[in-house]
């Protein structure tokens, strides 16, 4: 019943859009559902959609993994070295305050307009998130636990493996989860600002030619991609946390 209501709302919205376009609002601004559908079908047919999708996904994945690795390692290091952490805190906070996209022109100058510059941007964004999460997780550990293990004769490596890592893991998970959304946004924004491939490029190049159907089509693709990623994550989370109480 409720799905019927939802379908009715969606249908009413699409029909209103289709009818208003070109009559109430100039078609150049809002396009219309049929043109958008045709544009997507066309992109699928000529294969360009898959190229752009693949570019965005590769950028996202490499940047994400790179950033996560840097952030987790840095988080562990500074989580364990209190003085270094407190010394660096204002510097890191200052960098954190900088809107990271502002670094894109710098990356483009150094790394070129290919995916490398976007990978670097995504990595920076993800690294900050993972750094803060991992560091807080490491700091949150009961120091008594570490002390008693040390008293029992555990080596530094054993403490890392048996206490620090498992205790920080939930925090790292949270960071990894949150970072996916940021990574996707950053990828697309980076592509919108300067690139020659990817979903963001599709949005920007369509807008540049005042092709509103193209802009909306690219946004629809982006939303579907984002939904797929979110759904996959929830599923992975469910299956990986079965062992937890």
């Amino acid at each position, binding site marked *: 019943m409720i799905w019927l209501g939802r379908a009715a709302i969606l249908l009413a919205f699409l029909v209103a859009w289709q009818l208003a376009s070109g009559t109430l609002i100039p078609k150049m601004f809002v396009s219309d559902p049929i043109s958008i559908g045709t544009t997507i079908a066309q992109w699928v047919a000529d294969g360009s959609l898959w190229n752009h999708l693949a570019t965005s996904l590769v950028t996202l994945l490499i940047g994400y993994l790179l950033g996560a690795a840097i952030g987790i390692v840095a988080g562990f290091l500074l989580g364990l070295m209190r003085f270094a952490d407190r010394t660096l805190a204002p*510097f890191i906070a200052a960098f954190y305050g900088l809107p990271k996209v*502002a670094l894109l022109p710098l990356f483009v100058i150094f790394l070129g307009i290919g995916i490398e510059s976007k990978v670097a941007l995504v990595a920076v964004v993800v690294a900050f998130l993972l750094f803060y999460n991992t560091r807080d997780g490491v700091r949150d550990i009961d120091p008594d636990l570490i002390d008693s293990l040390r008293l029992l004769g555990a080596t530094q490596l054993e403490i890392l493996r048996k206490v620090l890592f498992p205790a920080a893991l939930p925090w790292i998970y949270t960071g990894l989860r949150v970072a996916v959304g940021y990574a996707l946004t950053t990828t697309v*924004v980076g592509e919108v600002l300067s690139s020659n491939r990817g979903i*963001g490029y599709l949005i920007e190049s369509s807008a540049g030619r005042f092709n509103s159907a193209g802009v909306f089509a690219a946004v629809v693709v982006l*939303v579907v991609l984002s939904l797929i990623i979110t759904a996959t994550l929830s599923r992975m989370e469910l299956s990986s946390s079965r062992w937890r109480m």
Partner: protein
Amino acid sequence: MSDAMKLAVARGALLITLLIGWELFGRLVDSTWTSQPSDVAAQIATWAADGLAWHIAVTLTEMVIGLAIGVPGGILLGLWLGRSPRIAGLLYPFIVVLNSIPVVALAPLLIMWFGLGMQPKIALVALVSFLLLFFNTFAGAQAVDRDLIESLALMGANRRERFRMAIAPACVTWIFAGLKNALPYALIAATIGEMMVARAGLGFLITSASAIFDMTALYAVLVVLMLLGAGINMLAERSEAWFLRWRPIAEAQR
């Protein structure tokens, strides 16, 4: 030496080492790509005498107007939908879809609609802050303790009183969490909008500097933007702490 002093010395030493290292690299090795701090400082000083305040003002104005539109709108819609379970249930899938849109990626669309001036940036800031506040307020309004509302109702409170005494205060925490995110995000949105097309603002300065490979100017804007961003983050944290000072400490520390 006390702990605080040791810390201050370490920070100062690190800052000075970094600056000297950068300066020496620029002077002795190659300053084409890295410029050097003295040049960057000189650039900021030149700008400060001529127009930097104007660009900062443009960016801040876009943020303030956008926030002034988006924040109240998001709070109102969030409160209303959060307290209307039937409508919220009906609209749930649409809300999920909305939540998963990387909104800043819509900037080209807004530029197409609103042109090259400040309007598309204001619209982008408004949209971003609207959605952030909406999702937070919505979650907060749904999470209000039912018992609290029911006991108020039992005591004869009408709808308006229940809203004022139970629902609104319970949402405040969530609203502030949203606001704390919205402030830095407003700066990000304004900067992105300006980096795409603009005639003024810090984002515009970045693009125009990088377009002519003026590294000194590029680093100078990044420094200004960094200070502005750190200031905004600090403001967001302080104001949250101040507004929520009535909360019990245990909750405030979460």
